[in-house]
């Protein structure tokens, strides 16, 4: 922070253009506040340590089941997430108030940003108010991990997809690749910006605790457990309350399957979830890379032949 203030004073030219002074405001307005959050780095270190110390992985990965019919939009999960990950936070009352206010954050559809790993959105579906939490889905075959050209993402055995800021180059291809628009960037850091995203509270999981957002939810909208069991539970809920739920579990096979699963009273499209793909988008780029390699192998003898011929012809020409 010191460094930046110094530089700001030093190069006051942007002030003349009316940018410098406004940038602080925009930074918060647009939600790119550079927080230098250590949450992602910390989780990565825990992951590395666990990898070294040959622990016995338990059977099956974990997940969270979000029930949109139960979420009341209190935004306490946002508060708890900020609190646990040491992101910029406000008193919990400010969050809880939103759903009663007129010009609240719910007026706009939001997405996670640097310093806010999760957000709750409000949808109005035919007069029915539905609140939907948004965070990383912790895909089973994550597009972000496949897209990163330095391999900065890993899917852990436990199911959490975590990010390693120590190798990230900042190309932001992971943000292009993620079908849920989750990774966010610290655009306002000139030297050491990083991608930030929900960690599924990997650091809590390995200690046997449930994610912070799940722990704080008093409306029973979030449940943590083994993904397989959550799927069974979800289908049981649907079977028991056919009028309450849309008869599908989102994330069972969407985009190759996700660790976070969603139940909804209306089709998922209406609550802002992307639909239409049952396999991971990473499949397409993988196929492409395979095809390119095949073509390159097929082309090389032809090219060697052409080059060889050109060489000998050239020799003749010069004689």
């Amino acid at each position, binding site marked *: 922070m010191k460094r930046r203030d110094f530089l700001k004073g030093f190069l006051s030219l942007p002030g003349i253009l009316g940018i410098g002074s406004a*940038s602080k405001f925009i*930074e918060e307005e647009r939600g790119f506040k550079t927080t230098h959050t250590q949450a992602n780095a910390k989780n990565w270190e825990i992951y590395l340590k666990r990898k070294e110390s040959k622990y016995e992985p338990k059977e099956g990965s974990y997940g969270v089941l979000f029930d949109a019919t139960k979420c009341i939009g209190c935004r306490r999960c946002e508060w708890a997430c900020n609190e646990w990950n040491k992101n910029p936070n406000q008193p919990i009352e400010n969050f809880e108030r939103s759903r009663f206010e007129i010009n609240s954050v719910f007026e706009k559809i939001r997405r996670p940003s640097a310093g806010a790993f999760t957000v709750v959105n409000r949808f109005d579906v035919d007069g029915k108010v539905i609140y939907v939490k948004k965070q990383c889905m912790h895909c089973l075959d994550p597009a972000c991990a496949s897209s990163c050209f330095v391999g900065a993402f890993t899917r852990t055995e436990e199911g959490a997809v975590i990010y390693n800021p120590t190798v*990230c180059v900042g190309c932001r291809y992971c943000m292009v690749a993620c079908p849920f628009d989750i990774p966010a960037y610290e655009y306002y850091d000139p030297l050491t910006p990083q991608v930030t995203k929900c960690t599924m509270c990997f650091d809590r999981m390995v200690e046997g605790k449930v994610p912070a957002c799940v722990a704080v939810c008093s409306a029973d909208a979030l449940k943590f457990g083994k993904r397989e069991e959550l799927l069974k539970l979800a289908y049981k809920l649907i079977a028991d309350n056919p009028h309450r739920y849309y008869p599908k579990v989102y994330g069972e096979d969407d985009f190759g399957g996700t660790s976070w699963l969603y139940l909804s009273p209306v089709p998922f499209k209406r609550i802002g979830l992307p639909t*239409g793909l049952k396999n991971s*988008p990473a499949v397409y780029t993988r196929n492409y890379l395979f095809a390119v390699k095949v073509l390159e192998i097929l082309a090389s003898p032809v090219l060697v032949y052409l*080059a060889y011929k050109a060489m000998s012809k050239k020799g003749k020409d010069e004689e």
Partner: protein
Amino acid sequence: MEKFDLKGFKQKLLLAPDFKSYVFGLFTPWNVIAGIILLFGFYAMVYRLIFGLGPATNLNNDYPWGLWIAFDILAGIALAAPGLTLGTVVYLFRLKDYKSFARPAILSSLLGYVFAVIALLFDLGRYYRVFYPIVWSWGLESVLFLVGWHFFLYIIICVVEWFPSFFEWLGQERLRNFFSSLGIWATAFGVIIAGGHQSALGALFLIAPTKLHPLWYSPLLPLFFLITAVLGGMAVVVIESSITHRYFKHQLKRFDQKAFDKKTLGLGKALAVVLTLYLLLKGLDLFHQEKLHYISLSSTYGVFFVLEHLLFGVIPMILLLWAVKEEKPFWVRVLSFWIALGIIVNRLTVCLIAYNWYIPWSQKYYPSWMEVALSLSMVVLIILSTRFMIRRLPILSD
């Protein structure tokens, strides 16, 4: 080896008797315009480095890639394909007619790539880590990894192909001949490398099937990008040769306007064939993937798609066929400009408009003035360095 003559070398470099007259010679109107653009560009660069991407650009979480990727990389690299097309035709297939086009083609590829990578450095959040994917942290599954490696290798190839004219200029016969014979192998290898990454630039978007508008998303994206890069390469050769033949006529020993026009027409023919092929594949994609219903007057994207392909596809194709048949080299030149512009429009559309098509238009990205200034100054730098080299190195006179 001859003794190094410093004064002679200085004159060779400055093309003026001394430094002072060189500096005074720089003040021409065009140079002043270029200088002003560069001034803004350099300001943008410094500003980006000190304050970061956020204040300098309009990038945001919904649009992680902006003008620098869309214009400087996606469009820039496609238009830097002359080396791929002309280099191959001349050095591998030994089409002697086009020999005089080869050196300028290689020069424009080299400069195009170098400045694209320079622009990329400003876009990377942690530019000082740009060598990570090359040296020690490999994301083998990533298309961008392939792009990074292929850029790296292709710049080396371009340098090898360019060395003969460089060493000729320095008067180093032996090195010149050595790189001349190495050049053929570099070209052969270059076909694989260039073909690989030109298609890979399109393949980058294969991973975003739900985020790119269905009219532009296609399993054929890599092929579309490759074909349009071939188009771009040829179009740039026509553009560049028509400019250089006009302003550097004195460097061409035996300039024959008729022969030159004939070659331009030949390139026009090739352009028409490739463009037709491209449009046929586009049509196939539209029908086969059942996307026709997206084209309707009520959808902005549908209208945009039709306009793009009419203005920059069908119309230039018809005009090209006419120009070639009626032997009108002037129109081939004009249409080459048009096609190059079309490729820029296509890349900007895919990366900035069709991408994230589900967010409201009011939240769409548009570049900040600093992004525009930096991109423009890269163009200016390419033009200036091309001129710098053509004036000195034996690029045209070979």
